[in-house]
């Protein structure tokens, strides 16, 4: 489902086809966060865990987003937060895609009992509301960012398994695959050389869209207290701090806007990517 | 002379394209239909026949600009407000759509859709009365077991049945005029004949005037009295069906007739018109048909021919006399 502008897709002269307004907006937002994440230690005004001044200062010239309950600089902590959110989301998506696509491809290509086992596992996993499953897994493994990430891989892989299986089943029927089989290619070779290369575009689109959702879920788990532990400048954790003092709005404002912008960015990008890779979906 | 049922005078319709440049879809169309008469309007897709009919209904998109005059029983329709127009639609003019598969709301029973048409114009009719009327209308269009059929959904009807239901809906308020926009195009040949029979019966029994829009001269041949041929947004030939069929004066009409399969030896000369109709917005200068016309001269490229009477028919062609001559020669050769 498309959440972003479909009416704004008038082609702009002098720009490549994919460079629509949402895509460029999404790209700029994400580029900004990546640059911040890579360079922040070089220019941050304060240390993220440093007690930088008086507690509960509203935004001012020294502390652009004020200070929190311990007197740490909210702006600095917000910028440092991206060093947790983006890499974790990236790892989660990478692992989920890897596991999901491998199992999905095997299920679709091998079929039979293997297919049944994998797909029933997928069905059961997708029967849980994502956050509940993630909570249960994290609780089982013990709280912590790493375990939260593992939990999210467990929640997310079945989506890609289902997608990949459907793709493999479609592509398998194409003539060039039959030709490869007829000319005596081994089965693994057929799968890797002739089927998989044609399966990627919906996976990529979905992964981009899901990236934002994973960022949201990481923050949610941290907010609940199952992810990052207190001194970590993680966004969900920071909002949780801010919730205790919600009448001091600025403590949660930075991380809130940060999450919002990154999720928006990925939604924009994913939408544009879908139009580019799959023109059929309008 | 009495006032004709539908009289269109010098009707032009223009739209704006994406860049905002206007282009004319229909230019200076004249059309007259008398009460109780079936009039055929024939042309290829894009000839402006559907746009003309939607203009009569006031159902063109808001961006359309309409000029000229459309009179129904002497009452001017161009310039009526949407509210006034709504009283005309469905009550005085019934509209039959090309594709009965898509012209019925899939989530309403057929009976409810017909009853809605009744109650829209006669709010005083009760629900059960309207339903009875719907059943009656289904019976009128020869749908078997109308009571049961009324409570079924469109997908439970076959294509021909649906078109009957659409006709019943159009007839709900006994309109003076039915506009049938390609009513048989989407149907099987045998069903086409049944639908045409039904329209003819409605004309005779109910005295309703019918405009039959089609790209198929064969459909018109047996049914219509008057005939207008449209090409590129204009009427190019107009007359009684018998006259036009006997002696086509416009090369386009001749082409249409020539591409008709015929049972006798003339079938040997069966041929299609070369080329395709130009896209709207890229219409040729002069006579729009000249690029496809075997009779074209320089004048055809330079100057647009106006309608002029020749014999019993009216035609817009510089070369009508030549066409008539050729026709005469061919017939005599054939007869010889």
């Amino acid at each position, binding site marked *: *489902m498309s*959440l*972003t*502008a479909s*009416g704004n897709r008038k082609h702009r002269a002098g720009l490549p086809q994919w460079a629509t307004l949402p895509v460029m907006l999404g790209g700029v937002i994400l580029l900004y966060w990546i640059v911040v994440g890579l360079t922040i230690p070089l220019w941050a005004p304060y240390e993220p865990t440093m007690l930088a001044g008086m507690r509960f200062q509203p935004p001012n010239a020294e502390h652009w987003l004020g200070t929190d309950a311990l007197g740490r600089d909210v702006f600095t902590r917000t910028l440092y937060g991206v060093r947790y959110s983006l890499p974790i989301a990236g790892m989660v998506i990478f692992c989920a895609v890897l596991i999901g696509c491998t199992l999905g491809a095997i299920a679709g290509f091998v079929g039979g009992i293997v297919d049944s086992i994998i797909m029933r596992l997928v*069905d*059961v*996993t997708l*029967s*849980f*509301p*994502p*956050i*509940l*499953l993630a*909570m*249960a897994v*994290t*609780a*089982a*493994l013990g709280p912590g960012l790493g375990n939260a990430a593992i939990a999210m891989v467990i929640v997310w892989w079945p989506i890609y398994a289902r997608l990949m299986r459907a793709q493999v089943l479609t592509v398998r029927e194409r003539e060039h695959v039959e030709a490869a089989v007829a000319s005596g290619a081994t089965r693994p070779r057929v799968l890797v050389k002739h089927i998989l290369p044609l399966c990627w575009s919906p996976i990529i689109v979905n992964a981009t869209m899901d990236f934002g959702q994973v960022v*949201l879920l990481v923050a949610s788990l941290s*907010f*609940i*207290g*199952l992810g990052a532990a207190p001194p970590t400048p993680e966004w*969900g954790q920071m*909002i949780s701090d801010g*919730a205790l003092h*919600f*009448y001091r709005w600025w403590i949660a404002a930075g*991380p*809130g806007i940060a*999450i*919002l912008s990154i*999720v*928006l960015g990925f*939604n924009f990008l994913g939408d544009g990517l879908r139009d580019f890779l799959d023109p059929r979906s309008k | 002379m009495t006032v004709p049922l539908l009289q269109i005078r010098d009707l032009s319709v223009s739209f704006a394209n994406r860049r905002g440049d206007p282009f004319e879809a229909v230019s200076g169309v004249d059309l007259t239909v008398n009460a109780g008469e079936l009039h055929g309007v024939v042309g290829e897709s894009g000839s402006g026949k559907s746009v003309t009919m939607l203009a009569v209904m006031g*159902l063109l998109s808001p961006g359309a600009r309409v000029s000229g005059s459309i009179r129904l029983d002497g009452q001017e329709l161009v310039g009526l407000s*949407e509210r006034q127009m*709504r*009283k*005309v*639609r*469905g009550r005085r003019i019934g*509209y039959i759509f*090309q*594709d009965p598969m*898509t*012209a*019925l*709301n*899939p*989530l309403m029973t057929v009976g409810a859709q017909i009853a*809605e048409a009744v109650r*829209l*114009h006669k709010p005083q009719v009760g629900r059960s009365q309207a339903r009875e009327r719907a059943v009656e209308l289904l019976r009128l269009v020869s749908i078997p077991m109308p009571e049961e059929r009324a409570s079924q959904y469109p997908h*439970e009807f076959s294509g021909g049945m649906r078109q009957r239901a*659409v006709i019943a*809906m159009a007839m709900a308020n006994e309109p003076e005029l039915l506009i049938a926009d390609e009513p048989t195009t989407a149907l099987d040949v045998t069903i086409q004949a049944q639908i045409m029979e039904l329209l003819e019966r409605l004309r005779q029994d109910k005295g309703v005037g019918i405009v039959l829009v089609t790209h198929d001269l064969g459909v018109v041949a047996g049914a219509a009295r008057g005939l207008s041929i449209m090409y590129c947004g204009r009427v190019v030939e107009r007359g009684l069906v018998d006259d036009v069929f006997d002696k086509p004066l416009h090369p386009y009409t001749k082409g249409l007739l020539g591409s008709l399969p015929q049972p006798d030896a003339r079938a040997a000369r069966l041929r299609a018109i070369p080329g395709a109709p130009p896209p709207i917005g890229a219409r040729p200068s002069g006579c729009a048909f000249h690029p496809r016309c075997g009779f074209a001269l320089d004048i055809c490229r330079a100057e647009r021919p106006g309608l002029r009477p020749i014999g019993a028919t009216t035609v817009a062609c510089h070369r009508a006399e030549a066409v008539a001559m050729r026709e005469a020669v061919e017939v005599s050769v054939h007869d010889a």
Partner: protein
Amino acid sequence: MSTYIVRRLIAMPLLLLGVITVAFLLTHFTAADPLTSIIGERQMNNPAVVEAARARWGLDRSLPERYVIYLGNLLQGDMGTSFRTRQPVAHDLMVRLPATLELVISAMLLGTIFGVVLGVLAARFRDGPIDNIARFFALIGASAPVFWTGLVVLFIFSVQLGWLPGPGRIDSRAVAPPFVTGFYTIDTLVAGDWAGFRSVLMHLILPASVLGWTVTGIVSRMVRASMLDVLSQEYILAARAKGAGPLRVLINHALRNAMLPTLTILGFSFAYLITGAILTETIFSWPGIGSYAVAAARGLDNPAIVGVTIIGGAAFLITNLLTDIAYALVDPRVKLSRQEGS
């Protein structure tokens, strides 16, 4: 009823069993010894206490044994006893269920109504200012974390403007209404307590709006897309040709058809609502299942975690099934098309 739904009905119990098994297994491979959360860290060095607690909570039995016992108990509505509250989990959940349902249903209603209106307007005035505002509003709703938007609206409407009360279900000085349904809105009315009803309603507005917002975006975009699709159909023109007015065409003919694809989205949005409810309840101190789940997960309260996970999974499965059934009931064509093999 269609074969498709029959097949779904048959698959339901199997999926539910899968959900139960996964939930059960998960919490029995925990890294931390659940005993710690029962008897406290200090007592862990006392073998007598540890043994007693182990036997008391059934942790001395083997995993398959415990699984079978758990399933048997579950069939009788027994989900074990919470380590934390020392109450039966089933009881805890039943007490908290109405609060969550009241919140989720209000949010669903608000989100759906608002989403449909927004979607219809956006489609009617396509690419106009209303469409763009609706698009923006939907995007924010789908992208912003509810646990932050909750804080923002609390700050604006409760702290700054003082229009609406802060967290909680009812005024903290007021007494909860006598239990009838557990829905405070209904219970206060039954008790004839108008002031209480008003307080409950005021307390409900913010959390329900925040939660509903997440759904508004999804619904409005879906309604817009399917309205645009439906409005280009010939039966819309046919309805106008009958003489139907614009409102009648838009609501009776277009919206009714556009709601079909939207129905499927409603089932899907339920996942969002559960996710959102857990976080919203935490923000608004809402004594529902969501905040219970959070407390359970934080406290390594295994029986409670399993219970909540099973209930959540069951709710999720049932909603999806209900959506499909509703779809089949509303769309007269479904029977045919599904049997024809799609």
